[in-house]
């Protein structure tokens, strides 16, 4: 029982990441009608925002203090990060919380990137065939990935979680189920974070007039265009929003898996599968399928399961996608008329 619960928990944080990426993909696809193969790269860019922020915070002043000696007798180099020097305790706190704090950096950066991308590139592809959209965003994904590789190298760069959330939490104790159920704090944080973002996005779509227009656009783009609403500007904002969602998802994911330049593509392929399973153009479907596939994947990686079907953990998601596509062509919660040719 504990083991099962642990697997569910394990799946939830990954599922959260899938859901967030798939949410953005769906939003862009539903409103703009564009298949964005560079969406994974946006997730990766978010992660590297965290890396950059962390590096900025760790810029140090190096002072050689002749009064102190190292055990080897050489003068001690005293390294103090500038933030700590300038801001004192708050600086140290900031340094510790660099990952969540870098959301502050990531939001404007990702918004800017999203807007530039939409204005500069995606906009010109609304009327082109889907194959062209796939190809051009695929090219863009390669470019973003290679630029990141150029500046940050090919190796994963681990990011620390804030110390307060660094350890494990005994979930079992909280739930009154004994000691065995331990779980990393940060993953729980990620789960709640993703739920919060998803909730915020849905609230935005549900309760603001802006969101209402977007939802109407997803339903019937042409009519909304006829209503005299400046659909172009809203498209830009939607794309920016999707970029921000992917970005913050990437930021917060860094303590779980150290980011490297090709993490985007790995997540993209999976997120596409999530979108397809959930139903193209269905936001709810994207979220449900994200968590579902995350949990499924974590169950498949249990040793007991692997013993029965070796290798299932590597292919379960794809298998599910194939089965879903063949049995429920519109996915779990897909609507009629989306991308049916």
């Amino acid at each position, binding site marked *: 029982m504990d083991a099962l619960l642990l697997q569910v928990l394990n799946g939830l944080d990954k599922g959260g990441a899938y859901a967030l990426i798939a949410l953005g993909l769906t939003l862009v696809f539903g409103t703009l009608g564009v298949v964005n193969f560079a969406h994974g790269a946006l997730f990766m860019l978010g992660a590297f925002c965290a890396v950059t922020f962390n590096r900025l915070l760790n810029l140090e002043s190096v002072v050689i203090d002749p009064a102190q000696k190292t055990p080897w007798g050489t003068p001690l180099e005293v390294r103090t990060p500038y933030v700590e020097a300038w801001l004192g305790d708050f600086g140290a706190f900031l340094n510790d919380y660099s990952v969540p704090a870098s959301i502050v950096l990531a939001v404007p950066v990702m918004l800017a990137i999203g807007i530039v991308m939409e204005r500069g590139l995606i906009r010109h592809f609304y009327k082109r065939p889907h194959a062209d959209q796939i190809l051009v965003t695929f090219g863009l*994904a390669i470019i973003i990935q290679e630029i990141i590789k150029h500046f940050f190298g090919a190796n994963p760069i681990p990011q620390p979680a804030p110390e307060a959330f660094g350890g494990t939490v005994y979930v079992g104790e909280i739930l009154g189920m004994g000691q065995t159920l331990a779980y990393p704090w940060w993953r729980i944080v990620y789960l709640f974070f993703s739920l919060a973002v998803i909730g915020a996005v849905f609230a935005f779509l549900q309760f603001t007039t802006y969101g209402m227009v977007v939802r109407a656009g997803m339903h019937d783009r042409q009519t909304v265009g006829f209503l005299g609403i400046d659909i172009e500007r809203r498209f830009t904002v939607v794309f920016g929003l999707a970029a921000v969602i992917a970005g913050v998802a990437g930021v917060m994911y860094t303590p779980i898996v150290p980011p490297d330049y090709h993490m985007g593509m790995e997540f993209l392929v999976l997120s596409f599968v999530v979108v397809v399973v959930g139903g193209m153009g269905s936001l709810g479907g994207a979220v449900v399928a994200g968590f579902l596939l995350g949990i499924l994947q974590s169950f498949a990686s249990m040793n007991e399961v692997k013993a029965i079907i070796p290798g299932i953990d590597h292919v379960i998601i794809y298998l599910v996608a194939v089965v879903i596509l063949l049995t429920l062509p519109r996915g779990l919660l897909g609507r009629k008329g989306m991308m049916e*040719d």
Partner: protein
Amino acid sequence: MFNNPARNDWLLLAGFSAVVLCLPVLLEPIGAAYPALMQKFCIFGIFAIGFNILFGLTGYLSFGHAAFLGVGSYAAVWSFKLFTMNAIPAIVMAVFFAALFAVVIGYVSLKRSGIYFSILTLAFAQMCYNLVYSVLTPLTNGETGLQLSLQDPRVIDAMFIEPAAGLPRVNLFALNISGGGYAGFYLCAVMLIICFFIAMCIFRSPFGMMLRAIKSNQTRMRYTGFNTRPYLLAAFVISGMYAGLAGGLMAVTDPLVGAERMQWTASGEVVLMTILGGAGTLVGPVLGAAVIKYCENIFSSFSPGTLHGAFGFLPDAIEDPIVSFLSLFVGDGWNLTLGVVFMLIVIFLPGGIMEGLRRIRMMFNRRPGNGRKIPATQTQPAE
């Protein structure tokens, strides 16, 4: 008004064969006339021709063709390990197993079209890639890659030849294929010409015409009395077999294979080759493959040092920024160049090089009363 179509096709084939067979001479001036590179041109040319039969004719964009490439390579190496170092059984095995995979994957993926098809093929390819790394390690040797060893049984060879010291080489009877000699190149070149010929037949045949019609209006095809599924599956399997052959030839010229050959980047590369050359044209994909492999060879060998050498005549203040900017694109940054080319082509020249050539020819041909009108879309077979 129209020339004899048969003669035109034979001329095209003869011209193509002449160019391919004379590559060692033709490529001398640009410094690409060594067999290892030229056989790469041929192998990727085959891969791209095959991909084009699917994408160029039917419009179905597969993102999983690298899987067939990998299957072909693994099958060929196993043929070397188990049976004989002769290239022919290896190639046959490669094509056969790729076809087998293509039938299964195609049967399932072709149940859907459009981007669903792209995603399904991508999912299948990723699945194969993941399996190669994990459960199939006994067959694929995982991350290390599959290679020959002295302990291999090689049952057929063992019956006829005394094993020599060291690892045996791939042969075609008396010819030594692996190891970067001209024999390897010519084997690939002949294969490329055969593949080109088959592709030409398909392009000119009613079968090719139906595939084009499916691309143009699939729904109409159904109401015209065609069962489109077997047409698409046939195109998918043929194109998978081409990929398998390319993979087999890779193994024949260099008998070791790693999983990275099956990664999505390899699938993306063949897509790029095809659209760079011109999807739906006969010669385009080969041209695209050659251009990309040539540039890869040139660009990835550049280092900041060579760049400094090239721009040494400039004052340092200008030279350094130029070099540091350009160094983004060369050496390890070759993929970045690839991405940029990819985008530029899709944005500005969706018809690829062939479309560019056609436009240039149009510019010169625009004299009044100059014979035939060139059709508005891509080159159609002469009637």
